[in-house]
């Protein structure tokens, strides 16, 4: 049992307090919550409207300009898949490493993962020309007797993303069961029914714990390689192509690091308001943020390093196409996107070397927003800018997104936050059981002496 709690011993709450405080987060929320919910739902609906418009008239309403055949949609797809990664990282990898501080934040991260994948999964569909046939990408038996092309990285994506969604959802649910059991008694009305069902008859008997702990361990063990594979696969969508600026061996680690980077940033973005709104500062403390920001710093520097390597290899390989492509990135029509990305992802995080910044929650919040922005632009630069300057100079083109694309992008945020808000209101966003776990059960000796 991990007795070395990441937080100082003085303010350690008792089991009862934990249950009470976290159960309190499920009470009727403030007005702000509903306002927020209303806003995100509206944004989501706008996005849906834009999508319907696009379906009616064709993808031409988006800004695609050959040779740039992939644009904001794929950029956003990669962005959300990336966001998803930190969740599993925190819940699985840190679990295997037995790092105690994760317990307070992993539930949020995990929920974020599930909803981020749900969002990401929509974009390949939105992006294809005939989305009503998107299901042809699945190898299902059909009268045509045709199958799919497993050599295509897109197929790998289909499998990777759907696997990732399934596993991370299972992971979330399994973690929730004991908590729900703990809340069962306190809830009332329809929620009581809900919890009684979803608790799956959990009582915390010795046998249940026996199987539970094992199962959880193996899930974590499986999720760990999965999280690494998923973004590697996503990166191969690009690395497998011959497009200058895509065709690079560094892509898999580069993308994984970037994914975790953006994911952690998003966790911070979510936790800061969350701990205020639900008054769980006692459980999600500055210590947690400092740990997160260390993670940010690490991954951020890996990403920055990857940028440097890309340019170096472009020069060192002597490949004229690569050189031209990267020259165009830095000084071409899209210089602004490239430099936004470098500033947000490479430069700003360096402030995290200062302990003051790491422990200043407002500073972290702002920084996390910048990182989110920067990571979106990273994908934009990789996808759009590389495509705009390929092999045929005659066929170079310049792509600018249209309002439809921006609306659908915004809509995706609406969709994501809508789910997150609904989750936060109805399920504990801090794990009751695991927070208790890092608090030792009272012992008789200590009590008497």
């Amino acid at each position, binding site marked *: 049992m991990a007795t070395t709690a990441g937080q100082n011993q003085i303010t350690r709450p008792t089991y009862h307090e934990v249950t009470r405080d976290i159960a309190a987060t499920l009470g009727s929320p403030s007005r702000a919550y509903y306002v927020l919910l209303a806003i995100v739902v509206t944004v989501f609906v706008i996005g849906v409207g834009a999508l319907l418009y696009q379906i009616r008239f064709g993808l031409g309403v988006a800004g695609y300009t050959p040779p740039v055949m992939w644009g904001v949609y794929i950029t956003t797809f990669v962005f959300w898949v990336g966001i998803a990664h930190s969740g599993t990282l925190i819940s699985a990898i840190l679990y295997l490493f037995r790092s105690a501080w994760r317990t307070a934040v992993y539930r949020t991260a995990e929920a974020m993962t599930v909803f981020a994948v749900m969002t990401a999964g929509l974009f390949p569909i939105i992006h294809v020309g005939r989305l009503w046939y998107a299901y042809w990408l699945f190898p299902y038996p059909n*009268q045509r*007797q*045709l199958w799919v092309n497993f050599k295509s990285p897109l197929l790998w994506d289909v499998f990777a993303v759907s696997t990732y969604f399934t596993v991370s959802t299972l992971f979330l649910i399994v973690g929730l069961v004991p908590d729900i059991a703990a809340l069962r008694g306190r809830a009332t009305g329809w929620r009581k029914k809900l919890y009684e069902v979803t608790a799956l008859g959990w009582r915390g008997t010795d046998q249940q714990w026996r199987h539970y702990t094992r199962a959880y361990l193996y899930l974590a063990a499986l999720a760990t390689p999965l999280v690494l594979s998923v973004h590697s696969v996503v990166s191969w969508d690009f690395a497998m192509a011959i497009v200058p600026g895509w065709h690079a061996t560094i892509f898999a680690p580069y993308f994984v690091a970037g994914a975790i980077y953006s994911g952690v940033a998003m966790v911070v973005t979510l936790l800061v308001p969350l701990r205020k709104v639900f008054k769980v500062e006692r459980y999600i403390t500055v210590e947690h943020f400092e740990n997160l920001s260390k993670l940010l710093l690490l991954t951020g520097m890996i990403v920055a390093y990857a940028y440097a390597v890309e340019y170096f290899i472009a020069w060192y390989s002597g490949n004229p196409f690569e050189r031209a492509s990267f020259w165009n990135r830095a000084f071409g029509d899209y210089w602004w996107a490239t430099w936004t990305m470098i500033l947000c992802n490479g430069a700003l995080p360096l402030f995290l070397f200062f302990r003051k910044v790491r422990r200043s929650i407002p500073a972290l919040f702002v920084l996390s927003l910048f990182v989110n922005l920067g990571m979106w632009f990273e994908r934009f630069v990789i996808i759009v800018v590389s495509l705009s300057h390929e092999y045929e100079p005659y066929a170079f083109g310049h792509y600018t997104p249209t309002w439809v694309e921006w609306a659908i992008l915004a809509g995706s945020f609406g969709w994501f936050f809508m789910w997150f808000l609904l989750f936060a209101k109805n399920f504990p966003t801090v794990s009751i059981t695991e927070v208790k776990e890092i608090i030792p059960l009272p012992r008789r000796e200590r009590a008497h002496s």
Partner: protein
Amino acid sequence: MTTRGLLIVGSLTLAAATALFIASQSSGDLKAQAGPAPDTMAYTAPVDVDTTGLPGPVQPILYRHDVHAGEFEMDCRYCHYAVEVSASPAIPPVSSCMGCHIIAGSGNPEVQKLRDYWNERRPIEWVEVHEMSPFVHFPHHRHVSSEQGSFKELSLVEKCETCHGPVREMPQVYQFASLKMGWCITCHEKEDVTIDCTSCHY
């Protein structure tokens, strides 16, 4: 167009024969009702059919394939004259109907309809029975002239029937096969014909 020339000559004689045959027995209908068909006939078409409840779309004229192709054993190519030379088999021009029906079939209301069309110089708007998706190219000439696999043993009309079904017994033609891709492929694989996509899709 020598093939077509021969076709026309051949089919005209056939037409003449048919015309005489019909003319010779003005009350042939009754005979057909009464006894079983003479041996000479492969198949006897029912005299009147109730179109309601018959499969297949209702046509502007109840053209009886079972009578023409079945009972009178007319060759498919008499009407669908292009089937051996062209990708599309051709819908018979009204004139080739009138070849016989200028004389034959008087008193038959359906024949009367035909004559009206002819006299009013109106084309007949037949309803398409075998609908194929527009992005599929089905070369009829290649199929009816095929010697591939089991097609070696088949007569022309049998080749037609592999896709079109027993048209010789259809008072009103209906779609016999699904004509879906899987159905095509099954046969192509069985007969060891190409299954290259661009042999049909382009």
